[in-house]
């Protein structure tokens, strides 16, 4: 059980690292949004599922699953909101010129 948990958390940490380096590497706001929004959800979900597997099935795991549910709902909303904000502002600047 612990071995499977460590494999899951290792894959998740790999996704997290790739997301961070992609955010540093890309040159545009929307490319950075794609690197962050795709890799963060995968890494966060894998690490939290690995934590649930690691601690067995006790009564605190429902809190971890609630946190995972919350993050899986709020992360795409945040990504969409930042992208919409940047797009609207750039469009407005182009129209004023």
């Amino acid at each position, binding site marked *: 059980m612990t071995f499977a948990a460590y494999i899951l*958390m*290792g894959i998740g*940490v790999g996704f*997290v*690292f790739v*997301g*961070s*380096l992609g*955010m*540093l590497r890309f040159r545009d*706001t929307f490319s*950075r*949004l794609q690197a*962050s929004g795709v890799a*963060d959800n995968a*890494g*966060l979900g894998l*690490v*939290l599922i690995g*934590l649930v597997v*690691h*601690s067995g099935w006790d009564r*605190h795991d429902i*809190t*971890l699953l*609630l*946190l995972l549910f*919350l*993050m899986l709902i*709020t*992360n795409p*909303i*945040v990504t969409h*909101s*930042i992208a*919409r*904000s*940047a797009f*609207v*502002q750039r469009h*407005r600047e182009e129209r004023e010129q």
Partner: protein
Amino acid sequence: MGVIDTLVLCSLVPILILLWRGPTAWDRLLAYNTASNRIVLVVCLVAVASRQAIYLDVAIGYAALSFLGVIIVARFLERGGGQR
């Protein structure tokens, strides 16, 4: 568990660089959101490693507050705030 903590904290370094030199405000906002995600992850890892279930409630509160802050700042920038 200590190795995974350390790796997640090391992945905060490129995000802090982006937060420092980001060309536009949206890059900095995205870096803040990503850094708060990493911090929630570290709090969950510490909570499971030290068997203190109260830290998970701290993580949920932190996630909700950072979500509200990012949404509010994004709406503020969308309406042209901070420029005039």
